[in-house]
């Protein structure tokens, strides 16, 4: 029994180590940035695009960061109905799924449940209507913890577009120092959103 576990862990580790050698990241310059060909935001500073570090990578999700994924993440996502912000390694593992007929509270629930895949007991707060570009959308804040007990704060803006895709931006960072540090940049990005 023990050997099955350790061997599987080792193989995953091996895959991770091998892949992280090839996975590439890139610099996203300050200014206008188009995510997934679906919407545009204005970035107040250069960000790192770490999308390729998500393995396996969920379709339609881009991951930006300044200080690495442990210290800040900005997900820019455009998800088809039936899609998700997270992607389990195997096809059969159930996951939270976006549906075209979701109401605003359901969209919030979908995002929060995706966050729950990695973080502990996330809770949404201050749900409110806020436009995503020209689209009527939903905005909310989020609080959670890492497994190690580091408090994580977050905020997100999401809206369904005319073609039923879900456009979403989700920002997560440790509540201590990091969250507040980039929040103005993130607010500016949210406010600058425009459909591509």
């Amino acid at each position, binding site marked *: 029994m023990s050997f099955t576990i350790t061997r599987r862990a080792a193989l995953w580790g091996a895959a991770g180590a*091998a892949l*992280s050698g090839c996975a*590439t*990241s890139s*610099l996203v310059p300050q200014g206008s940035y188009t995510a997934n060909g679906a919407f545009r935001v204005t970035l107040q500073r250069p960000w*790192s695009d770490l999308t390729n570090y998500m393995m396996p990578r969920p379709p339609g999700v881009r991951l930006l960061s300044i*200080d*690495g994924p442990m210290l800040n993440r900005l997900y820019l996502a455009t998800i088809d109905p039936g899609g998700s912000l997270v992607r389990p390694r195997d096809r059969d593992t159930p996951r939270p799924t976006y549906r075209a007929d979701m109401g605003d509270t359901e969209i919030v629930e979908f995002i929060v449940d995706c966050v729950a895949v990695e973080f502990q007991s996330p809770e949404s707060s201050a749900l409110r209507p806020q436009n995503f570009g020209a689209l009527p959308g939903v905005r909310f804040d989020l609080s959670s913890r890492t497994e190690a007990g580091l408090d994580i704060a977050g905020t997100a803006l999401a809206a369904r577009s005319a073609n039923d895709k879900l456009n979403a931006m989700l920002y997560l960072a440790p509540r201590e*120092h*990091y969250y507040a540090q980039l929040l103005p940049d993130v607010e500016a990005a949210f406010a600058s959103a425009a459909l591509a």
Partner: protein
Amino acid sequence: MLKQIRALAALAMLVAVTACATSAPRTFQGEFQPPADNSRILVMTPDVQLSVLTAAGLQEPREDWSVAGRDNLAAAVATLIRAQSHSTSSLDPATAMEGRVGQIIRLHDAVGGSILAINYGAYSVPTRNDDFSWTLGEGVQELAAAHNADYALFVTARGSYASAGRVAAMVGMAILGVGVPLGGQQAFASLVDLRTGNVIWFNVATAAPNQDMRETEGAASLAETLMRDAPL
């Protein structure tokens, strides 16, 4: 599959087996204040995990080694700091995981992990790759106030020591072209300014064969390599 195993074993050889002591310090790139004379430095109880690498390649934790390594490193580092005319105090982070101080300690784990991955590892984050200006933020003042300190030093060590049977196995397997990790030990240190939260200095050192942290002298020598370029 076999190819993969060999490649990984070889990779492990490169990482784990280094003949001589190495050290790769990084210093904060912005403005910072190195500790003035008579600074109060809080030495966090080192986090040390050592294991024995058996002939069959299993790494078994050795609690006695971990405890000896921890105590030896803590003493050696404190001696070095006091030799620079600073005072030291110690804090076992395991006893301080509550409240905001606990959050600061956890955040240090996250920042230290990011430094290791980005500045020392193969993980590229373009906004950070060439920029050593990491911080925990001003929340560190809580830690300063609670423990009467101006700076905090965090030390972590990981590694394994080969058993006699392991050395024999290596000779045999090497003929087949398979590298067998012989064990190796690394130590990490970070010095945090408890006013600004900035990580003003960080280092990773690989122990030389004569720097056995399970022994007092070996730990002193390793601590010296680790702390050599610290702005103390």
